[in-house]
Every structure is written in C-alpha cells, then in structure tokens.
C-alpha cells in the first residue's frame, strides 16, 4: 500500500466541489463550473473584488449571478481547483457539492439558502430572516450528516411580504407572516420546477405558524425527513416533492411535530401580502437611506463590473452588496443616490428602462444541457430590449410580467412560473440540431401563484420577440381596466392566445 499525501485536499472535501460543464452542441471549452454559494446573496466589497480576481484569473473575466444568489464561474480547470478553494476558504465561501453527477439517488446536499435580498432594509418588513439564514447556512457547511441525501434540498426565507425568493419553487420555504400580534413564519413545502417525479410542483402552503425560535429546529427536522424517508430507489423519485406526494401533508406535519417535539400552531391568513419585487431605487426603513438595484439581465457580470460596483458600494454605501434571486445586484445603505446613479452611468449601467430589466432571467444554457445557440441569457436580453424599443415602458410595467427563459425542458430558470415563460427544445433539421422554444403563458407567483400553459411549441428563436410583442399588443387593446397580463392570459383560451401571439392587435 502506498499512502498518498492528501492533506491539501482533505481540508476542502465536503465543502468544495466543481460541476462539469458539458454542451457538446456548443463547445465553450469550459471543463468545469464553480458555483460559489453566497448565502442570501450577502457579499461585501472586498469579497466581491476577490471573486472578481478569481473571475479574471480563471474564468475569462466573466461570471454569472444565479437565480439562487450564487456567483458561478466557468472555464475552471480541475488542476486549479485547490488554489481557488483556498482563496474561497479565506473569503468564507463554499460551493454546492454537485452530487447530481452520480447516477443513483445519492449525495444530495443543501443548496445555497435563498433569502430576501433586502432583509433588514425593506420598509414594512415583517421580519428580518438573516439570523435564520446564517444559523442554517453555518449548520450545513461541511456537515457530513447532510451530504448524502437522496437528492439536493432547497430552502428559502423571506420576511418582506413579497415572494421575492420564489418560495413556491423551494423544498421548504419560510415566509414571515403575522398572526394576531405575533410575527413568525408559515411554511411552504415540496416545491420544485424540475421534471423529476411527480413533475413540476408549486410548494404547498402548510397552514402552520412557526415561532421564530423554533424555525431552525423545524428546518433541520424537515431536511432530516427528506434524508431519512426520501426514496433512494431512483433519482427520478428522490426529490422531497415525491415523498410529500406519497405521504400527503397530514403525515408530513405529524412526523415533523413528532421530530420537533412540539405541536405546530395553525395559520390561515395570507402567505404573501404584496406582489412585486425590489426593483430600481427604494427608500429603506432606515430614514434617509436607499437601496439601488442594479439590473444584470440574465445575470451576466464581468470582472470589471464587479470591481466597479464594489468601489461604488464603498463610496456611496457601507461596502455591503446583495445578490438577488432575479440575477441582479443591490447596493444598499446609499444616502447620495443621485450621485451613485451618475457614477453607474459612467460605467455603462442604467437604472432606467422597464421593470423587465430586473424581472427577466435566463439559464446558463450555453454551458450545460442539450441546447445550441442562441442561448437563454441572450434571448432574454434581446426580447427585453426589443419590447422596450417598441412598447411604452410604463405600459410594460403596468402589465406586471416577467420573462424567464430556460434552454431546455429542465425548467432551471423557472419558466413555468413566469407570466411569459420560454422553454427550449432541439429539432434535427437536415442533420443539424436547431434550437426552438415553447411559449408558456399565465404563470406567476406571489399572492396568486400559478403554472403557465404551453401555448406554442417549436418556435424559431428569431420569432419569439415578435410573437411576444404581438401578444402584448393584443393584450393592451383587449384587456379590461387594470387587468394584468397574467389575468388576461388565464381567462383566454389556448386558441385565443395562439391568435394573439400570431397577429399584432387590431
């Protein structure tokens, strides 16, 4: 036996890994991606500069903000990994464990915990969820008890009254609510947009009220239920939603109560109080301070932009920054917002434009999946700019919609719950694979969540923006006063919607 010296690796195992990039149809030359977990998207200027350095050195100067508030780098070579992990360790960041590469129902971990990006800042916030975020994130880092679950597990926490974390797509979401004079959490469980069994599911409201001091134990008990009772028969049956589908809510809640040793109070009030997000510039609960939400359509962010934004966070704020679950970046605690806007303009960033700039997302299809060019992020950008050029921005804002684009059927970008969702598919034509998209309409989340209906299939990518413009043109012409695009789509038949997509109003 020869003993290998692996001390340099041992310190990272269980906390750091790389994912594999593979898109044989669109070779980018990227062997691996590095998904840096940023719990709740909380990052400070010096950490962001260090991530920018990593991006410059290893990732061709380009990074992505993901829809779970991570920062993802590509073109990572395995032989550079230990050096990169060492930098990350000093920064206090870890990575996803990327156990989905294994063929069986194994090696699932707790993913980056998503939290309201303006926790502690939002006016009318019910509850600041950051202490729960920190407690849970710290608990799971390198914790061997939660690194071999049947599959991954996703948490979200929000206390602002909006569904800014897309709570309905998570395995377990803590949503702050008020019950009489108490503020605590209600729970949504079993959400998942993926195709695994029993198919895409919106998280189910549990109708329970959890006191803040019990939230940590409830979270751990729930993930233990997933770990200990989740199916290991196959990957397709290994997500928590499958267990919930088989058990039902009643059995889950009684098991949860047994594990936490407490009877959970009932809650029958509203889950979310408001629709919308945290776009543009908003006054904070701290008098005289603002947060400025910088749009990064599709989540693209360059190394130079990261450095500039870190500098501006130091100059105008207190050095803190927040990544949002809509792939944007917030500079909080700003007093001189007009000066900040001028400086943002100097580096080519505008806070003008429609809300679609903050509300549109695209997945990283160029690096994974079965897709080809043009890719999801560029498509979402192209559509937003096209609509802004052809439709009054105020009208676009009033319609209240989002555009989410996923390059394949895996719904990574939650296209099922966008008012306008696009899901890619490939078709072979004359021996060449071509990228097409389905159009889904009428999804949404917040006060009234719903999944979109598939209206059109196999649409060439160059037609998407024109068809969406056509739909909107019909909507503006035919809608009832104050009817949102989602309401309009959901009252229309599929036949009508097909017509609207294919005939510009009139």
């Amino acid at each position, binding site marked *: 036996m020869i*003993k290998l010296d692996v001390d340099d690796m041992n310190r990272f195992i269980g906390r750091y890994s790389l994912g594999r990039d593979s898109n044989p149809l669109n070779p980018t030359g990227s*062997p691996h991606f590095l998904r840096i977990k940023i719990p709740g998207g909380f990052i400070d200027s010096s950490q962001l500069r260090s991530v920018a350095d990593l991006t410059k050195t290893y990732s061709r100067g380009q990074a992505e903000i993901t829809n779970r508030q991570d920062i993802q780098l590509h073109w990572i070579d*395995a032989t550079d990994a230990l050096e990169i992990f060492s930098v990350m360790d000093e920064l206090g960041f870890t990575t996803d464990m990327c156990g989905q590469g294994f063929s069986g129902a194994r090696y699932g971990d707790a993913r980056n915990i998503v939290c309201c990006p303006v926790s502690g800042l939002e006016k009318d916030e019910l509850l600041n969820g950051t202490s729960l975020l920190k407690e849970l994130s710290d608990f799971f880092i390198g914790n061997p008890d939660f690194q071999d679950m049947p599959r991954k597990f996703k948490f979200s926490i929000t206390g602002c009254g909006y569904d800014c974390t897309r709570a309905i797509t998570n395995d377990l979401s803590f949503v702050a609510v008020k019950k009489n004079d108490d503020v605590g959490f209600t729970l949504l469980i079993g959400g998942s947009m993926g195709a695994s069994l029993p198919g895409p599911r919106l998280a189910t409201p549990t109708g329970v009220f959890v006191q803040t001091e019990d939230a940590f134990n409830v979270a751990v008990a729930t993930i233990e239920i997933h770990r200990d009772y989740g199916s290991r028969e196959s990957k397709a049956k290994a997500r928590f939603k499958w267990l919930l589908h088989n058990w039902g809510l009643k059995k889950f809640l009684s098991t949860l109560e047994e594990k936490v040793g407490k009877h959970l109070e009932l809650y029958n009030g509203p889950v979310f109080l408001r629709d919308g997000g945290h776009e543009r510039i908003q006054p904070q609960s701290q008098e005289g301070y603002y947060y400025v939400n910088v749009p990064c359509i599709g989540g693209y962010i360059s190394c130079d932009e990261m450095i500039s934004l870190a500098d501006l966070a130091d100059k105008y704020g207190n050095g803190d920054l927040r990544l949002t679950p809509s792939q944007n970046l917030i500079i909080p605690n700003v007093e001189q917002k007009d000066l900040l806007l001028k400086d943002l303009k100097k580096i080519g960033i505008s806070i003008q434009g429609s809300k679609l700039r903050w509300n549109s997302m695209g997945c990283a299809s160029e690096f994974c999946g079965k897709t080809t060019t043009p890719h999801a992020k560029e498509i979402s950008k192209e559509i937003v700019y096209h609509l802004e050029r052809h439709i009054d921005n105020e009208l676009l804002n009033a319609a209240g919609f989002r555009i989410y684009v996923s390059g394949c059927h895996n719904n990574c970008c939650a296209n099922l719950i966008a008012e306008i969702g696009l899901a890619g598919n490939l078709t072979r034509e004359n021996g060449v694979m071509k990228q097409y998209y389905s159009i889904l309409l009428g999804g949404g989340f917040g006060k009234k969540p719903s999944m979109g209906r598939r209206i059109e299939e196999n649409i060439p990518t160059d037609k998407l923006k024109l068809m969406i413009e056509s739909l909107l043109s019909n909507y503006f012409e035919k809608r009832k006063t104050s009817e949102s695009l989602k309401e309009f789509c959901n009252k229309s038949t599929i036949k009508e919607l097909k017509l609207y997509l294919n005939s510009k109003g009139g």
Partner: protein
Amino acid sequence: MKNSDIQRIGKGRYSLDVRGQVCPYPELLTLRALQNLSPEDTLEIILDNPPSVKDIPIAIEKRGYKKPEVMRVDKGTWKIIVQNPK
C-alpha cells in the same frame, strides 16, 4: 479522506478507489497517484462519479499518457486503467 491509499494488487499493478468523491477530487487523486508510481506501473481507478469518467482520460491524455482503458463495472461504477510511461 477515506479512499486515499493506493493498494498493490499485483506486480507493478495498483488500485485507487475514489468512489464517493465529486469533481475535482477523483482527477486530482489520480494524477497524484500516478506521480507516486514507478515508470510502466499500471493504475486501476475505481470510481462512481460519471463526470470524472469523462474528465480523467482527458486529463491523462493531455499529459502525454497513452489513452486509458475505461470499463463499466456495474450500473454506477467504472474502472479506468492507465499505465505510467517508461
């Protein structure tokens, strides 16, 4: 790491078990193991992480080794056989 030892399984033939390890560790362990072996020694790597089944042969060939043999042992396990050059 529990699977970090190279087992001798015959004359000039060794085995490295990296099951349960995610990227990049199977690739890094393989490269390190090869450095610890003598010229012309053969290393069998047992692994269950499909991305590494693709990565390890690429990494090895990039370093001038002969194309390794990749065998599927069962539904979720592979064996990669590589020989150190002279």
